[in-house]
């Protein structure tokens, strides 16, 4: 029989480090003479060190570099780099109509994906009943959420494909109807991508609301029943206020996630038709990796960062009393 003991595993692990004792022992004697707070500072820094190095390299430094690069005309191969001050931003904000279009498109996606929260609430209410076997549906509706965007995008782009090579149009063809150019017409493509996003992510909102619903005390409903409140009144005065926190949380996440829409667009429309579904991130991706203009792409990233920061700060203030402010 194998006995499992954390203690013993750690012992043997520490045993490996005994070879360093000749160095460690003199240090330990020195360490113990230090004031306690200094001792703890040294220990703490050693604990934080691996994280700190990676955090500095992959988060802190790149933020500053992003600002730095955005002030340059910088091509990706690194041969043509020239300081140009704020010219990138000037061009972006005043003349670059493609960027303006991408910005508007992104806002449109944000607006069109807000309903995901309400559909999630609807699903949660639908499944929040003490009936045997209803749990399986939570799993079913949540499942798409963990599947990669490539799979989701592939399936739905085949469902909505514009010619007879799409499920819906092939179906319509049997009755001599269609074809509907779902992905070949700008507004329709926007709706299709938004719907795909809904189908993909609504399960997450559903689960958050279900958790929220379960946190509402049953005693409140019992008391309301005693007072003669009907179902609608209970919903209006107990359920809705009880869900404020998950609702605030989802609003924050949804807006930020929709601002960063990229995968669905890349898989389903590649920004088309005629740039109609091109989002900010897709625009950054094209500028940088198709036209190799890192400096210009980075300037877009800076603007996006600033906008997201402003949005999160506004949201944190707006939802402060929901206890999400800290």
């Amino acid at each position: 029989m194998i006995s499992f003991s954390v203690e013993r595993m750690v012992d043997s692990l520490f045993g490996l480090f005994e070879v360093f004792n000749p160095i460690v022992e003199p240090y330990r004697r020195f360490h113990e003479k230090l004031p306690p707070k200094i001792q703890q500072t040294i220990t703490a820094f050693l604990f934080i060190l691996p994280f700190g190095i990676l955090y500095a390299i992959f988060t802190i430094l790149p933020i500053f570099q992003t600002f730095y690069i955005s002030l340059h005309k910088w091509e990706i191969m690194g041969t043509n780099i020239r300081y140009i001050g704020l010219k990138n931003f000037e061009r972006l904000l005043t003349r670059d109509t493609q960027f303006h279009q991408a910005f508007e498109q992104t806002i449109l996606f944000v607006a069109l994906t807000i309903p995901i929260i309400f559909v999630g609430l609807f699903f949660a209410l639908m499944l929040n009943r003490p009936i045997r076997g209803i749990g399986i549906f939570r799993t079913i509706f949540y499942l798409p959420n963990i599947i990669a965007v490539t799979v989701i995008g592939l399936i739905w782009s085949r469902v909505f494909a514009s010619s007879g090579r799409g499920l819906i149009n092939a179906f319509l063809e049997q009755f001599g109807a269609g074809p509907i150019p779902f992905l070949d017409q700008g507004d329709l493509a926007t709706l299709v991508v938004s719907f795909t996003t809904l189908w993909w992510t609504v399960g997450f909102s559903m689960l958050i609301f279900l958790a929220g619903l379960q946190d509402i005390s049953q005693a409140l409903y019992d008391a309301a029943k005693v007072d003669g409140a009907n179902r609608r009144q209970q919903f209006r005065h107990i359920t809705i206020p009880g869900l404020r926190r998950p609702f605030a949380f989802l609003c924050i996440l949804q807006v930020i996630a929709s601002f960063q829409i990229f995968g669905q667009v890349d898989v389903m429309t590649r920004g088309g038709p005629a740039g109609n579904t091109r989002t900010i991130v897709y625009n950054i991706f094209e500028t940088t990796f198709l036209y190799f203009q890192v400096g210009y792409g980075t300037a877009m990233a800076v603007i996006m960062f600033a906008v997201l920061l402003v949005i999160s700060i506004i949201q944190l203030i707006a939802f402060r009393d929901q206890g999400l402010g800290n």
Partner: protein
Amino acid sequence: MTSVGAKLKRERQQQENRRNRLYVAAVALFAFIWMLPVLWTVVTSFRPEPALQRNLASLIPHPFTTENWSFILGSSQLWKWVGNSVFVSTTHTLAQLTVCSLAAYAFARLDFYFKRILYVLVLAGLMVPFEATFLPVYLLFANLDLHNTLIALILPGIASSFAVFLLTQFFRGIPLELEEAAMMDGASRMRIFLTIILPLSTPVITALAIFTFLGNWNSYLWPLISATTTEVYTIVIGLRKISQAWGFVDFYGRNMAAAVFTAMPIIIFFFIFQRRIISGIAINSGIK
């Protein structure tokens, strides 16, 4: 009297049951319609190409073929991509848990100089979107000639502010007395961390591990720009490549088989960890 009351009660119970069954049936019908595209995808992957040319919109796999699937399952390239994904996501997850739990222990339990400012600096990372950092990181890997290696797919994102935040919160909730007793016995901080803190934190660590793994497995933009040769594709990026190569006209069934194949490992993963995923959502989103 009592028998009448019992009868009434039984009748009401039966009525209730009937209503419930009807309700579940309605929900089931809705779920079926909601999942119809998935069902169609699976069925299509079992239909031969000529039949698909004639009529795409069918849920009956007749005529039936396993040719699409034998092609996909026989493709060493797809298996290699799955292998890459497994390796990258596992390594990334283990590294993140190690690095972030060490840092979190310091923030939760040690009293040191610059603690506040350092912790604020870590939390500030929660506000930094991927887009604000990925181009310099891309250039860094380009300068080091590390693109098209698995290391480039593993490293970014290991130092996660969110993980440190979540773990710090949890570690703070562990009673101090447990540590003090060990301290009396002369245990070092590292020993306390490994033998007391970590074993007591398995629920939160498992939840974090699952979501880190899922997030990394499904990550899209970074592997798309970093991995440009087929040997280092993850399965998620690999599927994009082959679906673009095959398009909408040829190999329709094969394409669908590839999509199902790509989703399969994560669906299996989901059913293994189902309970923890469903409850972990609440932990990870700080709702509970």
